[in-house]
């Protein structure tokens, strides 16, 4: 690659802007790849273990003559979301310094984490639908009743599945971004102020749970007012809009916290 111009050996401003954009894209791509790779491997293992537990528990309960009135997914209050949240803390915390040392900018880091989180969210959404369908079939096979009390429901297997992919993708992405924002908060403000920031950074998580009727918020809502049948279109749109607002808040918080991170000298 040549960065030297034939005219006077100097780069003109436009070329510098183009090189900056190319550098930004390269850096954001590297971050996204890193986030996706970690979620692919560690998240893959999580889902494998989760599936084994999801199969084993009903079989053991059934073998012991018992019955379950709720599936593992809903009982665990969206544990995949919390797993994504923890990975969201770990991955950026481990890679931000490397990213800056390799010449990446903070904005490229935020963009890369956001894109990686979106890919991870979509993956988790698809796996959630697969898991729920598997759980429904298993419960039916061993004679347990099964119904979803949480989540947005459109009324019909395909719309429900699509809506679940969408809401889980939104929520998991929000969880990952909030985790990343918490890690950035510690990096930016240190232990005490970083810890103080954890509580406000949980607000988007609470909002996405309530809006999409999933996770802990969904579990609480389902006990008060089960989703049951198909919801009104307005209710679904409102839920998705709430999820988008939560996602926006999480992305905004991450951007604000990462953009001012300073790396102090180590010597």
């Amino acid at each position: 690659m040549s960065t030297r111009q034939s005219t006077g050996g100097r780069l003109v401003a436009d070329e510098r802007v183009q090189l900056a954009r190319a550098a930004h894209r390269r850096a954001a791509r590297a971050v996204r790849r890193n986030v996706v790779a970690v979620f692919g491997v560690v998240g893959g293992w999580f889902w494998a273990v989760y599936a084994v537990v999801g199969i084993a528990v009903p079989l053991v309960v059934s073998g012991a003559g018992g019955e379950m009135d709720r599936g593992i997914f809903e009982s665990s209050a969206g544990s995949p979301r919390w797993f994504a949240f923890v990975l969201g803390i770990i991955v950026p915390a481990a890679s931000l310094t490397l990213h800056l040392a390799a010449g990446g900018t903070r904005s490229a880091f935020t963009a890369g984490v956001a894109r990686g989180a979106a890919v991870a969210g979509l993956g988790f959404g698809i796996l959630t639908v697969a898991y729920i369908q598997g759980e429904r079939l298993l419960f039916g096979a061993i004679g347990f009743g099964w119904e979803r009390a949480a989540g947005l429901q459109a009324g019909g297997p395909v719309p429900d599945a699509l809506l679940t992919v969408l809401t889980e993708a939104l929520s998991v992405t929000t969880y990952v971004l909030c985790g990343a924002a918490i890690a950035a908060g510690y990096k930016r403000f240190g232990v005490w102020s970083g810890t103080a920031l954890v509580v406000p950074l949980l607000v988007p998580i609470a909002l996405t749970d309530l809006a999409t009727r999933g996770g802990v918020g969904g579990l609480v809502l389902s006990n008060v007012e089960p989703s049951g049948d198909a919801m009104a279109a307005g209710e679904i749109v409102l839920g998705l809009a709430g999820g988008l607002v939560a996602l926006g808040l999480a992305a905004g918080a991450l951007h604000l916290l990462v953009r001012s991170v300073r790396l102090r000298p180590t010597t």
Partner: protein
Amino acid sequence: MTTPEPFGARLDDVVVRYGSRRELVNDSTVVKRDATTALDGASLTIRPGVITGVLGRNGAGKSTLLSLLSAFARPTSGTVVVGPEGAQVDPWENAWVTSNVQLVRESGDLIDDEKLTESLTYYADLRPHWDADLAGRLLDRFEISTRTKPGALSRGKRSAVGATIGLASRAPLTILDEVYLGMDAPTRYAFYSEVLADYAEHPRTILLSSHLVEEVERLFEEVVVLDRGRVLLAEPVEDMRARGSSLTGPAAAVAELKGDRRVLQEQRLGGTVQITVEGALTAEERAAARAAGVEIGAVPVQDLFVHLTEPRGAER
């Protein structure tokens, strides 16, 4: 691959303060005081295309200054610009600048619990001028496997990885901040040779910060000395060497030549004395020295650095 234009840098009245603390003062009010002032009005120009040594005692502000150039940190006040001559801009969040400035810190900045190849791939992905062949050759030379996890490397090997990254990045501004810590002597000398060879082949701006002044001064073309957050001097290394002269010979003749000059260092062995005096000798004084059998020598940069940064109370 064409060699990119070397980057220079300029700092104007830069102040960097880290952290703060609140203190209770006499009238029962609480005031916020700065905990650390790492740089205190530093002004400096880094000339592009040369190897510059950045010297200073512990806590002088070397690492802070270098972290500003690579946009690891921002100044509390003052301005920092980096880039080729005529196109220097604020490096903070400027992807064009940051992708062309490589700061290698003593800590290495690697992912500790993944194989070294993961970190190197990351650097290669982001660095527009990365030379993978050079990285591979250097790691072979330093006997480091890319399958090793950085967390399992000795300090010296980790430093060698940092040195490899610094050279293989081929960044127009390459900054090596105490990367030699823990390296054994053969590795250090191999590294110095590699720096010179690669610099000759791919001219760029290199900043070297080191406490091993005696070892690395032969690499320097320019020197910056920091003291208590301020730039004490920034000049060609020959100018710095000319700040002092070494006289060795019979005590009486040396004393006469010394005149009113300030003595920076003195050693005596029987009737022979060796002193380092401030300032260069005139042509007449040189002739007189030769006639009196007094040998005139160059003063090592390290000696001058030690003298220049001597704590005030220790000055003679």
